[in-house]
């Protein structure tokens, strides 16, 4: 098992190295203009030269995402639990949730800017909304799927009211909720990066990518894109790590 996991990791690293080598080969061949495709080395140099700024951008992006994600997730779990437990409330909300889930979230950004201004609040609010919707849907689903016999057995052990929700319903729904959070963190990052490309941003990876593109600082753009990609990758891995720790029993 251990050997297989190690093999898998090594193959993955090897694949990544191969892609960088191909990138280097294409860039060095002169077939593609360096204006469109700077070499990996140029990109690395741009990253080194702008490390201070890009680090500030990374911190700004991460802070917006963290605030939006935590607020959206907490609210989503609360509301989702309420709707999941109450058939009537769910009936009223079902169509509305389905509508907003189908609506591409970025269409709401101009409205968010009118409501919350051009600065951080509108970006964080939209990220929170995105995370909230995904979390609500998965929480409702998770709560609805709790086995009836588990609830009945817990009731005969005198679990009722809040302890029944907190100690039986919500833990049972945790694997489904975390699956939702994993989607939510990826989509949340997309929303943060896109909203950062609009006016009113000083720091942010989205802002850096957009600005570098505008003035043809292509190596800087590539550097910021790479950092954004690594961030998304790391966040996804972090959720998976948390999932294995908290929901170790799921799928067993």
């Amino acid at each position, binding site marked *: 098992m251990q050997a297989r996991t190690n093999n898998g990791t090594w193959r993955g690293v090897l694949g990544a190295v191969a892609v960088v080598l191909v990138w280097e080969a294409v860039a060095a061949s002169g077939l593609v203009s360096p204006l469109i495709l700077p070499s990996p080395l140029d990109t690395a140099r741009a990253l080194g030269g702008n490390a201070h700024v890009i680090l500030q951008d990374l911190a700004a992006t991460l802070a917006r995402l963290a605030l939006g994600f935590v607020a959206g997730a907490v609210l989503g779990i609360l509301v989702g639990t309420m709707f999941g437990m109450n058939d009537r409330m769910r009936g009223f909300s079902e169509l509305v949730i389905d509508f907003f889930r189908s609506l591409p979230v970025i269409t709401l950004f101009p409205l968010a800017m009118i409501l919350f201004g051009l600065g951080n609040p509108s970006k964080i609010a939209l990220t929170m909304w995105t995370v909230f919707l995904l979390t609500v849907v998965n929480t409702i689903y998770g709560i609805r799927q709790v086995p009836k*016999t*588990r609830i*009945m057995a817990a009731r005969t052990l*005198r679990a009722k009211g809040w302890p029944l929700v907190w100690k039986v319903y919500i833990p049972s729904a*945790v694997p489904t909720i975390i699956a939702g959070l994993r989607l939510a963190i990826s989509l949340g990052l997309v929303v943060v990066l896109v909203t950062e490309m609009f006016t009113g941003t000083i720091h942010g990876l989205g802002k850096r990518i957009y600005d570098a593109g505008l003035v043809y600082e292509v190596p800087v753009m590539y550097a910021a894109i790479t950092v954004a990609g690594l961030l998304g990758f790391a966040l996804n891995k972090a959720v998976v790590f948390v999932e294995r720790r908290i929901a170790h*029993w*799921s799928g067993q």
Partner: protein
Amino acid sequence: MHHDATTANKEQNSESVCLRATDLQFAYPSPTGAPTNVLDGVSFMVAEHETVSIVGPNGCGKSTLLLAVAGLLGLDSGTVSIRGKPPCEVSVGLVFQNYRESLLPWRTTESNIGFSLELKGVGREERAEKVSSFLQELHVELPLDRYPYQLSGGQQQTVSILRALFAAPDVLLLDEPFASLDYRARLNMHQRIQEIFHQTQQTVLLVSHEIDEAILLSDRVLVISHRPAKVLAEIGVGFPKPRPRELVLTDAFLRIKREIFARFPL
């Protein structure tokens, strides 16, 4: 067998009655057409420290009957009285066939068994102490720090039964508790559970579709009809408890089995 005498004795001495179900009626409401009648005047009693089995064809309403006794089902009419009170005012233990679903998989063995104490607000250390002395008294050994998915099926169902017993229920209701286990695990569970019930003197109502199991474990067997459920027959089992597994091979056992077989709705 001698069920008339047994029943008469128990009915006379009303103090020894633990559970009495009188004329239970229940129909599932159906959106189209007439409601489905499930329980049609079911009456029976279980004496203190007695184990009574309910056998009947699949889908006859046995599980519905247990839920009604547990107070988890709104009856159309009829009453359930446990030690003179309605089910919601007493402690009822409930164990289902599917231990995977009914156990809390994020909790260890110890934490599952101690769940009822946790709900009462008892602290972690005291719970651990009480769970371990409870298991010691019953001579049961279980890996306390393992999660349900790390245990065998038989161990998981043992945890499930002990979790219910630990709450000291007035009556313990078991719904096909061994049906998911393989043959060997089931035979072992029969012995283990008999010892536990013998020691705790627990009053038990067991639903089973396995006639051998019903006879081996209980003092009386109730045969239930096809849906809507009625009590067709009541057969006493007089062997002293706990009983060895070889009992199922004896002529005396087979006589009782024949009697139940003759009354079983086919």
